[in-house]
């Protein structure tokens, strides 16, 4: 027979006003198994908790039910109090008679009756609670960071500086990400390369960072504290151990007319190349699709077509037969910082929900460019040496029209979300333009100006007031060629007038989207993502850098559109989470996980099929002589998150979720 104590809280007037707490306490006292039942003004107060602790000792309680607010509010409080009095904390449960009762009903009699019902559920349930103890999982105190942009770099450095090893995986041949392409950064206009490059070098030189550039995550196994990650090191065609980055190969490559990705197609590179001079690691990569030698091989030409790079390489570092290789790393935590791509707004689209903006002629009119292309034009290290020149004829544009929200905040044709950075970088662009072309005119079409952030609104004001950018509120309906200018047809919604401008160049602030391949990575990691592919955080406010898979964190623009300060802040947040996780050799977690009844499990593995975490493993039951009797399910304690889908699916109910066992739920339903 149970010895249960029931404690009904008035919550001041919050519960007491509509629920007759004394009556509820009295009714509960009459239930079989309840030996003590009282009501009190504030159960969560110190005297209230003392009441519980005292009762546990005095009445030798083996279960405590607190009828009060939502367990989301105070379950931890009361469990701690119970534990302090020597009762297993999992023998304490709450019945919610505030949010679910007193606050939503007016009739005192009805509310009191309902409160009795709600508390009775929990009284019955707790008769079947078992004392549980927290689970300890060993932690492999190394971290994996996926993505070597500013977020990944920051996270890696913070963790490494905190004393833990980091593996940084970058799919491109150099780290740096999009930030390395930017000319200046808002709102301070400091040079992007100047602040980024030292951080990149720091990564390369850090004794606790293992940098794997030109690599991708192939598969992820395991669980928090114990991940096993298989990493594909793509074939660079360069023996990294031999290359000293002298650049002879690049210089001698005959194919020099390949559009450079780094320059957003505005400049050229060779087939064997370093994406930009400050690349880390400063080791070239051979683009086999554009290399004459490989093209020849593909065509079946027997003779080696080229091979100049190998000839000129003094260290014989060029290896045309290099294959992708794989390494496996064991880590305890993973940070995903894969960043973003810009919305390609040409006609062809890869997804049904995207429609592009064919009317803007992007991809067909050469002087209609996107924001990143403008960054390259403005960059001192860019294809024009920092001069603003039109891609079509190299002339200096005297009138540039900037269009904001291309693809963003457009439910019909693009993404309904705001890309967050565009208002700011368009303002920056108008300023850079003004600085470089003093007589140039910048005209901005905007929907709203969103300049929340330290110094952000001041920055936009400066663009308008000091750089004389003309801001027109409205949308542009079409961009068409008009001689060597571009006819911009739009409307100024403030004046209500249609606007027609002949611009020398048009810059589109296109939307931010997650990187291609994010969904397949998310699936490897068992991390959920939204309609657009942005990774989901565990809680938008309280757990913004965690994911629902324990031990996996998100930083930067892979989670939502982010600017540099946000990305860096998130990265440091993930680093601090990871260092927190690594502060102990073992990880302690709540024991509310599934457990298999070995006697009755038949090994049909329906549980394995439904487990969202892959927590079900196969266990061989053997007799004393070692003969296999049967193969049954076993739950990996580190992986199980306690959703209980396995239990509802198990035909013979041979898997039980602690905290919500069938007996507990049955008892509650039985009390209906």
């Amino acid at each position, binding site marked *: 027979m149970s010895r249960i104590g029931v404690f009904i809280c008035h919550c001041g007037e919050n519960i007491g006003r509509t629920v007759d707490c004394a009556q509820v306490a009295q009714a509960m006292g009459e239930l079989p198994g309840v030996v003590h039942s009282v009501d009190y003004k504030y159960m969560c107060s110190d005297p209230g908790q003392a009441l519980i602790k005292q009762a546990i000792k005095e009445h030798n309680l083996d279960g405590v039910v607190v009828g009060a607010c939502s367990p989301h509010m105070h379950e931890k409080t009361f469990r701690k109090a119970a534990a302090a009095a020597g009762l297993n904390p999992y023998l304490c449960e709450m019945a919610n008679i505030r949010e679910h009762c007193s606050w939503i009903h007016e009739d005192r009699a009805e509310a009191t009756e309902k409160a009795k019902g709600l508390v009775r559920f929990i009284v019955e349930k707790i008769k079947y609670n078992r004392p549980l103890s927290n689970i300890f999982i060993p932690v492999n105190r190394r971290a994996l960071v996926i993505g070597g942009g500013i977020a990944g770099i920051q996270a890696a450095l913070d963790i490494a500086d905190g004393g833990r090893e980091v593996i940084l995986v970058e799919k491109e041949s150099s780290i740096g990400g999009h930030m390395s392409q930017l000319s200046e950064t808002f709102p301070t206009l400091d040079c992007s390369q100047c602040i980024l490059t030292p951080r990149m070098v720091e990564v390369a030189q850090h004794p606790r960072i293992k940098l794997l550039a030109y690599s991708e995550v192939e598969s992820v196994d395991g669980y928090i504290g114990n991940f096993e990650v298989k990493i594909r090191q793509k074939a660079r065609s360069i023996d990294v151990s031999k290359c000293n980055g002298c650049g002879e190969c690049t210089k001698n490559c005959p194919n020099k007319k390949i559009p450079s990705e780094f320059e957003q197609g505005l400049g050229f590179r060779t087939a064997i190349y370093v994406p930009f001079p400050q690349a880390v690691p400063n080791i070239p990569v051979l683009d086999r699709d554009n290399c004459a030698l490989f093209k020849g091989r593909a065509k079946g030409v027997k003779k080696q077509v080229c091979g100049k790079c190998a000839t000129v390489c003094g260290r014989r570092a060029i290896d045309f037969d290099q294959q992708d290789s794989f390494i496996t790393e064991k880590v305890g935590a993973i940070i995903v910082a894969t960043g973003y791509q810009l919305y390609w707004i040409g006609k062809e689209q890869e997804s049904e929900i995207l429609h592009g903006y064919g009317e803007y002629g992007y991809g067909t009119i050469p002087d209609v460019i996107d924001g990143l292309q403008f960054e390259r034009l403005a960059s001192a290290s860019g294809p024009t040496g920092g001069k603003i020149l039109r891609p079509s004829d190299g002339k200096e544009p005297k009138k540039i029209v900037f269009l904001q929200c291309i693809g963003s905040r457009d439910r019909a044709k693009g993404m309904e979300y705001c890309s967050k950075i565009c208002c700011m970088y368009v303002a920056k662009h108008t300023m850079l333009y003004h600085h470089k072309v003093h007589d140039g005119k910048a005209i901005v079409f905007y929907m709203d100006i969103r300049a929340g952030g330290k110094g952000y609104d001041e920055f936009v004001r400066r663009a308008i007031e000091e750089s004389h950018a003309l801001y027109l509120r409205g949308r542009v309906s079409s961009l068409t060629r008009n001689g060597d200018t571009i006819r911009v047809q739009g409307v100024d919604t403030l004046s209500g007038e249609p606007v027609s401008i002949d611009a020398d160049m048009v810059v589109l602030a296109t939307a931010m989207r997650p990187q291609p391949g994010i969904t397949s990575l998310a699936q490897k990691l068992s991390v959920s993502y939204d309609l657009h592919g942005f990774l989901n955080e565990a809680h938008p406010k309280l757990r913004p850098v965690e994911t629902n898979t324990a031990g996996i964190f998100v930083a930067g623009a892979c989670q939502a559109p982010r600017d540099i300060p946000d990305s860096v802040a998130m990265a440091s947040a993930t680093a601090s989470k990871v260092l927190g996780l690594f502060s102990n050799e073992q990880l302690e977690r709540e024991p509310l996980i599934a457990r298999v009844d070995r*006697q*009755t*499990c*038949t*090994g*049909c*593995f*329906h549980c394995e*099929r*439904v487990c969202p975490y892959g927590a079900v493993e196969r266990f061989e039951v053997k007799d004393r002589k070692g003969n296999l009797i*049967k*193969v049954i399910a076993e739950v990996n304690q580190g992986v199980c998150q306690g959703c209980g889908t396995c239990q509802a*699916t198990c*035909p*013979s*109910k*041979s898997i039980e979720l602690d905290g919500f066992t*069938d*007996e507990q739920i*049955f*008892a509650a339903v039985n009390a209906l």
Partner: protein
Amino acid sequence: MEELRELAKKLLQEKQVNAVVGYECDRRGVRPAFVDDPAGCDRLVFDHRCVQNLPAYLSPRRTNVAGLGRLAVVVKQCDARAVAGLIRESQLKRENLVLIGVRCGGVAANPNESRELGAETLALRCYGCSGTETAMADYVVGEPKTVPAAGGDRDARLAEIEKMSPEERLALWKEWLSRCTRCHACRQVCPMCFCERCVAEKTQPNWIESSPHIQGNFSWNVTRALHLAGRCVDCGECERACPAQIPLGLLNRKLAKIMSARYGFAVTDDPSTPAPIGSYRLDDGQEFIL
């Protein structure tokens, strides 16, 4: 028939298997046979009275049969669905088994059927069947046969019930389920009911009351049907075994229809087909959800 006997003899003589599970004639009709010596192979028969789903004997729960050792089993195409199901659900390893596929021209509803096979005697599950052998078979025996034309619409009885009002339907099921004495024969003969401990036998907690009152009978029959959703191989043995004459096949058939309509799912003799419960699609219908 000779082909089947010769094959069985060969398998036993060559010690490829320890026993052959097939069919034999008895006093009244046809019943399952377990032959472990080559001389006994002449007992084996296959004709339209071979109703029973022999893979039911392959469940690990059948310890006596498991004790025979490596088995060859005579399977009709429909029976092979049970073999596939048992493999899919890790109860069986394909390599531990020899499957003798028989070309079947349809079977009667009853193994003691004395009449010829025709529209009147044809088992419901054979309606619309092509009678071809299973692709899983290691050996195929028998001449190709044609299944007689069905004696009507297989789902006529289902349609009739669907037309009724909820009250009429409940009254009907109450009437039928009131005959259930919870012998659980439906479960014991089912090739896909292989749990070591059936949920109906769990008493802590006692979700499904074991007493044969209508409440317990309702819970039991609903749960049995649900557990077979997308798994039932449509052999009809549950209904045939029911000593209370409850038309259990209706429930299984209804679920097969739901599975097909909602998820385009059909139970096949291919073990690699995923089970529909335990899988999902992001765009699964949810018209019933507010």
